[in-house]
């Protein structure tokens, strides 16, 4: 499957398909279903300095062709991720992208510093865009200058390349992308979820205990495609695209928009075998579209010819 091998900052991947953060835990559950070494990479669940329980339940609600989640960054905390999850994942031949979250600068820095030292962590994904955490977080993802400074500080301590995960809940996504590029980011991952809500017909109250949640799934794909199309023309960082990917065809659409790799989130819940299925189907699709290598597809929607 030479046609799928790709190189990105810090990442030498056998294929460009990876589960998106928060949709695959730390891989344990899916390892019962298929060999994790098949994956291009794994974006593990957001890790914060302290363990977090997250939000009260219900934490998920279905929407038309999408879902809302308000998990609230539940995770066992840096120490346990370092001592238990990452060593366990080391049995697989798959690079880990560690999703780093926090509610203040120091948290991010502390997590980034440590977790980037784990031997199988090949890159960080700076989660400045989680819509489900009340304190602080929002500014990191919506104010360019704040995002830039955070990126810079995390870069200073990280031993591996840093990808910044952009929030779609902004007026100007290019401005955000440029800011984190200025801050020294090695790549972008986009998009995180859009803030949404569903209300229960009978009770009249929001279905999610947290009221609002992040919208993901096929419903948001056209928004992600548009943003990647825009951003990829204005920054020179590689982009790992995500949002509603369900099939090999969707992966190509992301490439055409400007992505260099693709992550799969919600679709893992619909079909837990979706990642290996896409990986299996991609080479033939790439070939049938007339390409030798998938990377030829990147940015075709705006490149000449």
């Amino acid at each position, binding site marked *: 499957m030479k046609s799928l091998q790709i190189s990105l900052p810090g990442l030498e991947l056998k294929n460009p398909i990876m589960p998106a953060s*928060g949709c*695959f*835990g730390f891989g344990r559950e899916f390892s019962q279903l298929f060999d994790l070494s098949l994956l291009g990479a794994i974006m593990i669940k957001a890790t914060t300095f302290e363990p977090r*329980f997250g939000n009260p339940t219900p*934490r998920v609600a279905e929407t038309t062709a999408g*879902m809302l989640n308000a998990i609230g960054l*539940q995770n066992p905390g840096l120490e346990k991720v370092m001592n238990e999850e990452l060593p366990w994942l080391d049995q697989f031949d798959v690079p880990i992208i560690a999703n780093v979250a926090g509610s203040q600068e120091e948290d991010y820095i502390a997590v980034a510093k440590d977790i980037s030292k784990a031997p199988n962590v090949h890159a960080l994904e700076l989660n400045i865009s989680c819509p489900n955490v009340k304190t602080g977080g929002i500014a990191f993802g919506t104010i360019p200058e704040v995002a830039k400074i955070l990126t810079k500080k995390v870069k200073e301590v990280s031993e591996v390349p840093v990808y910044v995960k952009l929030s779609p809940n902004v007026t100007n996504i290019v401005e955000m992308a440029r800011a984190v590029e200025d801050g020294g980011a090695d790549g972008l991952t986009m998009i995180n979820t859009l803030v949404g809500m569903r209300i229960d017909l009978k009770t009249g109250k929001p279905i999610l205990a947290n009221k609002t949640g992040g919208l993901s799934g096929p419903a948001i794909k056209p928004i992600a495609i548009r943003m990647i199309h825009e951003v990829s023309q204005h920054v020179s960082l590689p982009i790992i695209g995500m949002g509603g990917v369900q099939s090999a065809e969707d992966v190509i659409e992301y490439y055409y928009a400007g992505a260099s790799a693709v992550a799969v989130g919600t679709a893992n*819940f619909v079909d837990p075998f979706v990642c290996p299925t896409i990986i299996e189907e991609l080479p033939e699709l790439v070939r049938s579209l007339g390409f030798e290598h998938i990377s030829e597809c990147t940015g075709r929607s705006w490149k000449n010819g």
Partner: protein
Amino acid sequence: MIKKELCQIVSQAEIAEHIFKLTLQGELVREMNEPGQFVHLKVSDYAEPLLRRPISISDINKDENQFTMIYRAEGRGTALLSERKPGDFVDVLGPLGNAFPIEAASTGETALLVGGGIGVPPLYELSKRLVKRGVKVIHVLGFQSENVVFYDEDFTKLGETYVATVDGSYGTKGFVTNIIEDRKLTFDVLYSCGPTPMLKALENNYKDKKVYLSLEERMGCGIGACFACVCHTADDPSGHTYKKVCSDGPVFKAGEVLL
């Protein structure tokens, strides 16, 4: 082992108002060895409804590779499921979750099985297995009203069976807890599945007994990866320790998690 398989519909019938009994056939029945597990169903080939629906396994027929579920057609997903015909295929992920421990009741002991509404189904396979083990079973089933009562006869075949309806249109008027108290039912082990208030009452009333409760929570993945379905543990009610209903449950020992 968790499998994903297109299982074929053997039969489907409305057995009470909006309550459907659905029997599927598939290889993954081989993996179903315990009572109280559930499956996660994709009810359409479309992106809508997007998510799978968790439904308990109520009857396992290993000889025919068939299993049965009983569900209420409530929202769009279950309504669509109820329109499927014999011969159609349903995308099943399962079996999932941890079962009721039948070994908690020894031969000769008495088990009380308490079900509320759509929590009744998983107790059926449980009861069959307990009976097979030589455990005496008593069933107390609660429903809203007569039109949604189901399976009371099937349970009666396995053991003593009492039905309560909220409006008194069938069986005893009131709640399952009324029956247990009024009839002074005694037991060694209690197994229950149903609405949370019912489970809470049972947990409170029988603190000294072996009690197993099956919980419900809105789910994403159904396999333990998304953290949608967590609950606090009882010994750390506001801390960060947790259990996942889908993979640590849905059956918990009373007192283990915060209801």
